[in-house]
């Protein structure tokens, strides 16, 4: 068995030239997100130009995985066969949208680890947990969240 939050079988992420540094960073327990070299604006998801000043001078910058729950959802109904077993018999899973105050309050999306039936409070402090899928081909990593 594995320690993944969601059962295996969902489409697995593949890097593109635009977001490759992010995925490589996760493999190395590092969160790298976009920042503009010209105006210092943080940006997520990845784009080719800065949304603030339109410069193409964007770099991937390391940032701490300290966040605040901005919104969340508890999913009950499976829309993919990989999650059928996990969600039958009153199963659910939690998705959180997390703001990173140390990175211009960009938002990252992930799962909230722990009891899927736990109460979730908007504004709660969370920290990142790297979830390494070593057995995937190719191996990849996700960034999950847990309450602090």
């Amino acid at each position, binding site marked *: 068995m594995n320690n993944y939050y969601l059962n295996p079988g969902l489409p697995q*992420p593949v890097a593109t030239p635009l977001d490759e540094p992010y995925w490589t960073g996760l493999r190395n327990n590092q969160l790298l997100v976009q920042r503009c070299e010209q105006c210092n604006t943080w940006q997520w998801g990845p784009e080719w130009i800065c949304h603030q000043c339109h410069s193409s001078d964007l770099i991937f910058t390391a940032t701490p995985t300290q966040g605040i729950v901005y919104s969340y959802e508890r999913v009950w109904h499976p829309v993919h066969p990989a999650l059928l077993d996990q969600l039958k018999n009153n199963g659910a899973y939690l998705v959180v949208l997390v703001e990173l105050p140390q990175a211009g309050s960009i938002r990252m999306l992930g799962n909230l680890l722990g009891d899927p039936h736990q109460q979730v409070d908007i504004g709660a402090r969370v920290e990142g947990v790297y979830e390494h899928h070593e057995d995937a081909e190719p191996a990849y990593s996700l960034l999950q969240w847990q309450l602090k």
Partner: protein
Amino acid sequence: MANAAAAIHAGIADTVVVFRALAQGQFGRFGQGLRRNTIAGDFAHTIPYGVMSPAQMFAMKVVRFMHDHGVAQAALRAISLASYHHAQANPRAVMYGRPLDEQSYDDSRWIVEPFHLYDCCLENDGAAAMILVSAQRAKDMPNKPCYVLGAVAGSQYRAGASVHNTPDYASSSFKTLAPRLYDMAHVQPKDIDVLQSYENFTGGVLMSIVEHGFCEPEACNEFFVKENFISPTGDLPLNTSGGNLAECYMHGLGLNLEAVRQIRGESTSQVKGADVSMVISGPMVTPVSSCIFGSEATL
């Protein structure tokens, strides 16, 4: 609708047919997740976390809106109950003969919180079409004309920002558009006799109605009650054919047909003397659109 009206006004077209046809059974259900081994690009940042269906993509906007303004689940329920109520008068409705009450709504399973089963649009096949011509030509047609008083399409600042990073997140994306619609149509929210508001999910209707100025965000719990939305007695009769929840999910084109029926006096839940009839199309995406129809008396 805005494109069709503009094309006729500019002389590019004499007649425009706006149509929609859905055959989800054969060609794929919108409510299902992607069946493939890998995913790249924007969706690589959401699908591996189990965010892949429309309900899952939109629920967090609604959660945040309800949190910010203290909106109770009963507000969403009222929207669903109104659609099902009107469907019982409409023999064409998929949910005709299948009424919904508060208890059944409350007991229904969650799809993704805050959406119960009955907060979600139907998945069905169907087809719908509208014919637009100039106001001059419409006078020669056999049916009572229904006039486009205003039609807009667009969105707000960075509404398309990826991975849920739209700055104004808890929004149906109508804040900048609605004032332009009212300016164009020369009407105010208080002039609207009947409203069709696209229910992909009830939470989108909630925010659409607020952003079109019918209700302050802090007043939702008082405004979103079933009685307020029932034709003909409610202050704002809503989704009077049963809409996407209970008549037929036609990507909102069915709502436009119903808005025209109201002007013609042909609805199965007719608002008496309806002269100004409004449609708010699919919320929470980008771009969005809305439209106001009027009878000859409004010209």
